[in-house]
C-alpha cells in the first residue's frame, strides 16, 4: 500500500492556515528535499514532451507551463489542428517547442528527453507508455491506464523491466487536502469513527458529441492507421468500446481510486447496473450505478458510486466517507467539501485547537448538567479542513513525478498501485454487462 506524500518543497509551496503548516510538514517529511531542491536549481532542467494535446492534454499543459525545473521541448498529436495551435500558443508564451505527429516520430528525433506526459486516448496508453519506457524515458500516463486489464498489466511489467518511473494520473493522490484528510483525520485522529459506508458521484449534463472545425479533418487513411473509424469517433473515443471505457472509466476512475486508497484495500465484490439508454450513437453505458464491498478490519464497508451523463443534478462531484462518528464529503472543489460530526461523537474542540480542523465558532461547553444559560440560538458548528491549495489541481501530482525523477520523492501513484484501482473499475463495467455480483480477490488486483 502506497502512502502518498509530499516533499517538504511541495508542502511549502502549498498554503496552509496559520499553525497548520507544521502539522502538514510533520505529516510527510522528506529529509532530502532541501538539498535536492538546491541541486535542481543548478542542474539542467528535466526535458519533457507532451504526447496528446486533447482535452486532458490541455489541462496538463496548463500545469506544465508553470512548474519550475522542467523544459517542455515538444508536443505530439496526430491532429494537425490541435498540434499546430498548441505549438503556436506555447511559442507565444515563451516555450520553444517542436511539434511531432506521433510518439514514434518524437522518439526518433528527440534524444535528450528524460520524461513524457502521455494523454492520448486510453487504447493508446499501453503501446505509447511501453515504447517510451523501453526508450529509457520516465512516464506520467493519464488514467485509465488502459482500456483493457491486459494492457494495464503490460505497463506495470514494462515499468518493472525497465526500472523507469511510471506515474498514473490519479492527481488526487498528490492533493495536499486529500493527503491531509486521509493521514490526519481518518488515520491519525480517526474522527469519523468506524467507516461503514462511502458514496461518490460525478454527474454531467447532456452534451452534444464533440465536433471539429471545417477543413480540419484528419485524412481517413491516417485515422484508420491509428484505429479510428472516422473523425466523430476520434473526437468522442471515450464512448466507444475498444477505444475507451465510458463514463465509469472517464470520471469514475478518479473516485473509485479514492475508495481503494482511503479504505486501504481493494473491494471484495462489485455489483452494478447501467445501460446505454440515452445516446443512440455511443457504445458505452451513459448511466451507471455501482456498489462495492470493502473488507475492513472492523467489518464490511459498502461504497456506492454513480456516474450519469444525462443530468448534472446531485451537487457536483465528490467522495463521501461515512463513519459512526462523522462524515467527510471530500472534493477537489473546496467549496463542496464538508465535514459532519455525529451528535454521539466526542467534541472536536481539541482537534480544532491542534489545527486538525477549522471551526466556524467555538463549541459552547455544556457545563454542569443541572444548570443552563439562555440566550440567542447558537448556530450549528461548521467544520473545514485547514489546508488550502493555491495551485492548479494537477500540478502537485506532476511535481511529485518530476521530484521522483530527481530522486527527492517517491511516486504517489506508481503503476502497480494504480493497477489495483484499474482492475476493479474494469470489473464494474463487467458487472453491468453480467448483471450479477462479481467476487474480487486481493490477489487478482495485483499486477
Amino acid at each position: 500500500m502506497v502512502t502518498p506524500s509530499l516533499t517538504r518543497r511541495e508542502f511549502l509551496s502549498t498554503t496552509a492556515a496559520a499553525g497548520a503548516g507544521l502539522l502538514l510538514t510533520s505529516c510527510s517529511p522528506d529529509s532530502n528535499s532541501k538539498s535536492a531542491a538546491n541541486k535542481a536549481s543548478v542542474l539542467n532542467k528535466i526535458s519533457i514532451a507532451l504526447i496528446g494535446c486533447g482535452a486532458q492534454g490541455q489541462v496538463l499543459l496548463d500545469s506544465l507551463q508553470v512548474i519550475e525545473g522542467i523544459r517542455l521541448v515538444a508536443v505530439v498529436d496526430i491532429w494537425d489542428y490541435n498540434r499546430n495551435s498548441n505549438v503556436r500558443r506555447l511559442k507565444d508564451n515563451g516555450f520553444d517547442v517542436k511539434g511531432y505527429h506521433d510518439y514514434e516520430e518524437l522518439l526518433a528525433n528527440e534524444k535528450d528527453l528524460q520524461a513524457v506526459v502521455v494523454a492520448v486516448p486510453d487504447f493508446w496508453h499501453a503501446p505509447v507508455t511501453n515504447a517510451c519506457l523501453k526508450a529509457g524515458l520516465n512516464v506520467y500516463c493519464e488514467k485509465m491506464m488502459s482500456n483493457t486489464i491486459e494492457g494495464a498489466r503490460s505497463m506495470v511489467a514494462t515499468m518493472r523491466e525497465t526500472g523507469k518511473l511510471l506515474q498514473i494520473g490519479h492527481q488526487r493522490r498528490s492533493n495536499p487536502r486529500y493527503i491531509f484528510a486521509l493521514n490526519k483525520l481518518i488515520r491519525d485522529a480517526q474522527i469519523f469513527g468506524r467507516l461503514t459506508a462511502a458514496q461518490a458521484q460525478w454527474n454531467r449534463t447532456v452534451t452534444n458529441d464533440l465536433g471539429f472545425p471545417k477543413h480540419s479533418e484528419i485524412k481517413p487513411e491516417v485515422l484508420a492507421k491509428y484505429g479510428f473509424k472516422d473523425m466523430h469517433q476520434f473526437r468522442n473515443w471515450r464512448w466507444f468500446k475498444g477505444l475507451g471505457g465510458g463514463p465509469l472509466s472517464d470520471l469514475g476512475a478518479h473516485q473509485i481510486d479514492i475508495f481503494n486508497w482511503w479504505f486501504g484495500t481493494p473491494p471484495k465484490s462489485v455489483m452494478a447496473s447501467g445501460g446505454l439508454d440515452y445516446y443512440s450513437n455511443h457504445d458505452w453505458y451513459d448511466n451507471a450505478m455501482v456498489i462495492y464491498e470493502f473488507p475492513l478490519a472492523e467489518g464490511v464497508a459498502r461504497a456506492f458510486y454513480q456516474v450519469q451523463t444525462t443530468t448534472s443534478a446531485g451537487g457536483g462531484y465528490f467522495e463521501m466517507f461515512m463513519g459512526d462518528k462523522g462524515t467527510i464529503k471530500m472534493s477537489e472543489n473546496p467549496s463542496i467539501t464538508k465535514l459532519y460530526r455525529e451528535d454521539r461523537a466526542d467534541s472536536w474542540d481539541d482537534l480544532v485547537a491542534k489545527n486538525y480542523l477549522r471551526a466556524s465558532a467555538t463549541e459552547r461547553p455544556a457545563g454542569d448538567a443541572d444548570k443552563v444559560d439562555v440566550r440567542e440560538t447558537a448556530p450549528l458548528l461548521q467544520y473545514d479542513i485547514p489546508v488550502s491549495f493555491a495551485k492548479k489541481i494537477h500540478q502537485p501530482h506532476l511535481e511529485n513525478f518530476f521530484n521522483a525523477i530527481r530522486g527527492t520523492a517517491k511516486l504517489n501513484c506508481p503503476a502497480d498501485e494504480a493497477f489495483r484501482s484499474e482492475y476493479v473499475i474494469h470489473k464494474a463495467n463487467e458487472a453491468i454487462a453480467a448483471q450479477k455480483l462479481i467476487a474480487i480477490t486481493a490477489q487478482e488486483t495485483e499486477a
Partner: protein
Amino acid sequence: MSEIHVFYHSAMATQFQVRLAGEEKAYAAQAAQAAFTLVDDLENKLSRFRANSEISQIAQLKVGEKLRLTGPVLACLRLAQKIEFATRGAFSLSAAALKTQPTKPLWSLIECEFSLRCDSGKLEFDLGAIGKGFALDGMAELLREWSCPEFLLVAGGSSILAGDAPADNAGWSCGLGEDNSPQRLLLKNCSLSGSGLAVKGQHILDPRTGLPGTLRHRAWALTDSAAESDALSTACMILREDEISEITTKNEGWLVFLQEKENWRHLGLRPMPPVA
C-alpha cells in the same frame, strides 16, 4: 433572413449565449459547445472564487514574489493594465481590494518571464468588469476558426460581441437599456457593454478613492473588443463627462453612450453605427 440558432450556457455567475446564423444546426451546436468549453476553462483560470485559479494564486503572493502565468491570463492582465492606464485608473482590477486594504496594491507584468510580480499589498483581483468580455473575445476567435463568422455572443446581457451580420442584414439589432429599448443599433464586428445600478445597486467602487463613486445610472461603451467595452463601461460609471471626452478622443475606437432621462448622447470620435 437565415435561421439563427441560439445556445445557452451558465458560467461566470451568469448566462452566456451563442447565436449563430448561416450554419447548419448540428455543426452550429458543436461550435457553440466548443466556445462554451473555452468559457469554462477561462473561468477556471480567472475566477477569484475558484481556489485553484491563477487569480486565486496571485492573491496569495507576498510582496516581491512572482507567478508564471498561462497565456490567456497573461493576455487578460495585459489588457487590464492597458485599460487602467487609458481610463486614468477609473477601471482597475484592484478596486475591490480597497475594501480590505488602505491603498491599492501594486503589481507588474514581467514580460520576458511571462510572470506577474506583486509589488505591494495583497493582489485581490476582481475580474468581474473584464473577464466576461475577455471570454467573449476568445469565443469569437474560436468561432471564426470554426468558420462561423455570423455570430452574436452575449454574456449575461451586459456585454455582447457581434461578428458578421446575418445574411441580408445590416447588423445585429442591439438595444441600449431595457427589453425592447427604442434606442437600437445595428452592430457587426464590434462589442457593446453596459454598466448600471439597476440589478446590483450601488456596487461600483472608484479605484482612485476606494469609495462608491458612480455619477450616473447607466453607461454603455462600444469598442472593437469585448474586454475593452466591458471594462470601459464600468469606468464610465465613475468618470466625469469631460474625462470621458478626453479619453475617447485619445482612443478613437471607443464610443460611449450616456443616458439622461429619456435621451441618449454619445461621446467619442468613433462613427456611430447605423440605428435600427
